[in-house]
Every structure is written in C-alpha cells, then in structure tokens.
C-alpha cells in the first residue's frame, strides 16, 4: 500500500493511464457489482436543499446499513440480557458499519476507518461517530497517504490520490483463526460446525470463536465488494463519454488536490491526512479521526498506590470491588484529563452528505488566503462552543455498563474464592492451597466443575460436621 502513482485501467482522459490498480486483496475485480443497484443515492435531483434534507437522508443511510438509530440507543443501555443470537446480530450490524463505502462520503473522507488498526480494536459506537462526522464535529475518516512530497506537481498528486484504495489490505490468514472452520458464510446458521460432544461451556466457546472468524471473513468480503464497486465507478468516470450519474460520488480532481496539497502528518500514526485534522481541545495538537477513535478509558482497575515494600501486597481478590475505577482517558499530548477534540470543517469544501456533489467541486479562485486564516484563528482567541467539543467518552457511551459488569464479576469471584478457601481449610488437608501452590479461584474456572466440586465439598463438610457432633456427644456422655 505504498504511494506509487496508481493507475486506472484504460482511462483515456485524465492522468491515471497505465493501470494495475488492485483490490485490497489482489483479487480480480471482474466480479459482482451487486449492491450498487439498491443503493439510495444520497443526492438525486432535488437534494441540493442543504442540511434539513440532509438529516433525513442521513437517517436513510444509517438505517440501510442496519438498525435504526433509535434501536442503537436502546442497545447501548445495560438493561436486559441479550441472547447469543441477538448479540451476534448486534456485532454483525456493527461490523457492517465499519465498511468504507465510497458513496458515504463527507468532505472527501468517509464514515468508516481506512484500517490502520485491527478490526477488533474498532469497538467505538459507530452510530455516534458516523453522526459526528456527518454533523462536521469530527473530521471524516480520510484515506491517508503513506508519505508526502512537497515537490509533487498537481498532476502527480492527483494520480497518487486516484490510486488510493478505500481500505488498507487485510491480513487474510490470522494466526488465531488458522484452524477455525467457518463453513458456508452465506448461511446464517452455523450450528452444524459446533462439536456437540463437547461440554455446554466448550460449545459456547467454540461458537464464539467460529462466529468471530466468520465475521472477520465476512467483513473482508463486504469491503471487497465496496472496493470493486469503487474501482468500477472510477474506471467508468475515466471513459470520455461517461454520463453515469453515479459518478457524482467521486471526488473531482480539484477536490483531491485541495484535500491533499496542504495536509499534515498525524503525530500518532505518522500518516499524512488532509487538513484540517481534529485538534485536542486542551493543547491544540492534531490527531486524525482513526487514531482518535482508538483512545479510550483503560480497563477497570484498582487505584495504583505507592506501596510500602516491607508490607505484603494485597491481592486483588481481597479488595473491595466497589473500589474498581475507570477514568476518562487523558490527552495523549499533554495528559490533561478527559481527552476531547474539536474540528472545524472548511466551509468552502462542504461536499458529500449534507453538501454539494464531490464531483462538482471546483477550487476557489484565491485559495491561499483562505487556507492560512483558519489556523491563525485557531491559535488566537478560540471561544469554543462546548457543544462542539467531542470527548472520548462520547464515542464509547458503554463505559459505565462495562465498569459495573466488571465490579459484579469481581464480587462474584471473591465470594467464590472465599467459599472455596474456607471449605478447603476445613476438610482437605492435602488441598494445594494448604501446601502453598497457587490454585486461586479464577474467572476461567469451569463453572460446572466448580458447582460439582462445591457440592461434593458441602457434603463432605456436613459429614465432617456430623462426625464432630457425634464425637462431642460421645465425649459428653
């Protein structure tokens, strides 16, 4: 995925002549153009009436990609337990929202990330992030350049941008899914892949692993369909007599140039993005959206105290679960608590959803003046409206539910541990816990085994009790 000037097949017009543009997986791109047919074009004729209309279309787009927004709000509440099927469905819906689609474009960027970070790390609330991007409160996910060279001419730069794929290439053979059979991905039911001779718990584990492997594969396929689509549209638009309306999603050369000629390197991924990036609210440092959505609370933990080395360390098992905490992340640059960013979209480059057609964008007459001013303004007096600040917690509203869940888990675990320790000490002189080995109760323990063992111990305990009582009786006689 270098930045070698890409090529767009037989484009007789335009700069991208000689072509070896490939889909991200390197597969042939002759296949399906399915999916284009039933797509809702975000801007047909009457859709130049700005934002209000835009909002309803946004709603349309969001709901075509899965659940409605109302659903998702309910879904993020920690209310009732969901069934396995429901949870799988929710994960699949989430994964669909992580597919980069060239016709879901905002100001030349997209609503889903390019793929610098692993699929499993994209656990932010996609509905929230998509809305923030559409509302221009967060920079869109732009396709990054690996490098940027000041000396590139306009033509060279456009050629390079033309060669950018929608999404980074995938690692198709992840070690962890190496020997997981995924079966027929078209079938929704994969019960037959699960080994029914295993215990219930192992079956659940197997199901979860197969589900993950299947979802990983499916997502690659979904993205490839989009990639092929995108490529076909680009090729189509390069044809001299092309009149296809679909091409209105594609960026004009002026737009590509305007985006990438004055970009900046994100200090976290070191990739080159169109300006403006998001800026930290505290210290005004840039951060791309792809890195921003990675920044989140640390896992719930106990407060880290300075310890007295002469005192024994308290085991986490013995601490009060209510002391578990989780704090909003700090600014990556200056460590100010509660990391938040702001974004000021360029008003004269409002294209895509809620704006003009990307294909019709023309560079303003005197671009240079406009370019310098916003950043000068930024550094000067910035009276930032609070409503426009995007805090890390906003894109992962489930943090509280996670903390409560972890507290409950720990409470259960320490209750179990106490019960086992007590019973061990009472009845089993050979139990490892009496001999100093570390058989601590752990969350991974097979619940069924545990229950079985607890029962057995309870029985033995009552027998022991009975013996003691009998002994007392006989002694008192």
């Amino acid at each position, binding site marked *: *995925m270098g930045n070698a000037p890409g090529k767009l097949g037989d484009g007789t017009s335009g700069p991208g002549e000689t072509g070896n543009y490939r889909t991200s997986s390197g597969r042939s791109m002759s296949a399906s153009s399915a999916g284009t047919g039933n797509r809702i074009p975000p801007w047909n004729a009457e859709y130049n009436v700005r934002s209000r209309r835009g909002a309803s279309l946004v709603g349309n787009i969001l709901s075509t990609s899965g659940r409605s927004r109302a659903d998702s709000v309910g879904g993020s509440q920690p209310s009732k337990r969901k069934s396995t099927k429901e949870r799988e469905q929710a994960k699949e819906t989430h994964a669909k929202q992580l597919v980069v689609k060239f016709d879901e474009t905002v100001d030349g960027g997209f609503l889903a990330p390019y*793929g*610098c*970070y*692993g699929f499993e*790390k994209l656990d932010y609330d996609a509905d929230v992030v998509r809305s923030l991007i559409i509302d221009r409160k967060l920079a869109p996910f732009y396709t990054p350049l*690996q*490098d940027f060279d000041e000396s590139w001419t306009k033509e060279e730069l456009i050629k390079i941008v033309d060669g950018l794929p929608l999404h*980074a*290439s*995938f*690692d198709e053979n992840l070690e962890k899914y190496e020997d997981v059979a995924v079966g027929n991905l078209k079938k929704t039911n994969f019960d037959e892949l699960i080994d029914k001779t295993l215990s219930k718990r192992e079956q659940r584990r197997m199901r979860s692993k197969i589900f993950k492997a299947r979802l990983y594969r499916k997502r690659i396929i979904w993205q490839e369909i989009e990639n092929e689509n995108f490529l076909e549209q680009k090729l189509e638009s390069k044809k001299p007599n092309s009149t296809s309306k679909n091409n209105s999603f594609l960026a004009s050369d002026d737009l590509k140039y305007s985006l990438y000629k004055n970009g900046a390197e994100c*200090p*976290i*991924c*070191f*990739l080159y993005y169109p300006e403006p990036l998001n800026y930290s609210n505290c210290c005004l*440092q840039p951060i791309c959206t792809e*890195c921003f959505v*990675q*920044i989140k609370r*640390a896992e719930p*933990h106990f407060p*880290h105290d*300075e*310890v*007295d*080395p*002469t005192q024994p360390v308290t085991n986490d098992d013995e601490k009060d679960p209510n002391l578990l905490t989780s704090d909003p992340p*700090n600014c*990556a*640059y200056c*460590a100010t608590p509660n990391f938040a960013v702001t974004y000021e979209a360029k008003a004269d480059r409002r294209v895509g959803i809620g704006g003009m057609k990307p294909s019709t964008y023309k560079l303003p007459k005197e671009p240079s003046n406009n370019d310098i001013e916003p950043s000068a303004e930024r550094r000067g007096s910035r009276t930032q409206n609070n409503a426009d600040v995007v805090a890390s917690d906003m894109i992962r509203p489930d943090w509280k539910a996670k903390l409560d869940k972890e507290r409950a888990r720990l409470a259960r675990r320490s209750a179990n541990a106490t019960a086992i320790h007590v019973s061990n000490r009472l009845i089993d002189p050979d139990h490892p816990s009496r001999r100093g080995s570390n058989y601590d109760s752990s969350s991974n323990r097979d619940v069924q085994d545990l229950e079985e063992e607890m029962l057995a111990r309870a029985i033995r305990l009552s027998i022991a009790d009975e013996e003691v009582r009998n002994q007392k009786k006989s002694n008192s006689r």
Partner: protein
Amino acid sequence: MASLPKRIIKETERLVSDPVPGITAEPHEDNLRYFQVTIEGPQQSPYENGVFNLELFLPDDYPMEAPKVRFLTKIYHPNIDKLGRICLDVLKTNWSPALQIRTVLLSVQALLASPNPNDPLANDVAEDWIKDEEGAIKTAREWTEAYASKKDQKSTN
C-alpha cells in the same frame, strides 16, 4: 495491518538518522517489531560507566499499547526485578500513543538516574534501598562493574 505500520518504519528510520546519545536501538532482521537496545548508565548514578542490554518489542496494538521493554543485563535497582522487568509508569498506566521508542528509552535511562524505592518491583532491593541507601548504591555499583562493564561488552561482542 498486514504489513509493518508506517509509524514503526518512520520511527526506526529516525532512530538511525537521529540517534539518542547513550542509547542504541536496532530492529532484528527477522522481526522488525523486536529491537536490540543498549543504554549507557547515566553519569553520577551507580550505573555510571555501565552499558546495559535490553530488548524491546512493539506489540500489535502499538502505539495504542506501550512497547514491552526488559533488561537483559543483570542490574541492582528497586524498580527492576530479577528477570529484568521494569516498573515504570510510562510503560504501564501513563503510556500515551504520542510517546515513542525514543522517549520510552529516555525514560528508562532517567529511571536509572533516579530510582524510586517507594514504587518497587524488586521488593528485596527496594527494602535494602530504604533501610541502607548507601549500601544499596554500593551494591548497584558492584553489579554494574560485574555485569555491565564496557570492557565486557566489547569482549563479548
């Protein structure tokens, strides 16, 4: 994701083109996320004149997750245990993705200059340090001489 992230490539290049005084870091040929590191003991510290070997690994989630760093040379220090594991906030809770290999290694070097026995990893060393700081510093010097002396490094290399 399949290939090495640009950030790691650029960091590696910059470590070579603009090295940090007293610190070297080179990736292994067969694993470009795995670095062979040396750090010189800071002056006016018990580790002065020592050269310490370390290993550093950039996990999959780097830079969202801190690099993993370990001493390979034996060292007597309250925040470094017998296996070379390091207790340093920026490697754990205070990691920030804006930090880099370079800054992490500088922090490790700074830790050598200012041990913190109140936040120990090696409990017995920390205890010594609190009870008898002078004696502990002496031991640290002896260990530096014994395991990290520059002459030794040269002869073994």
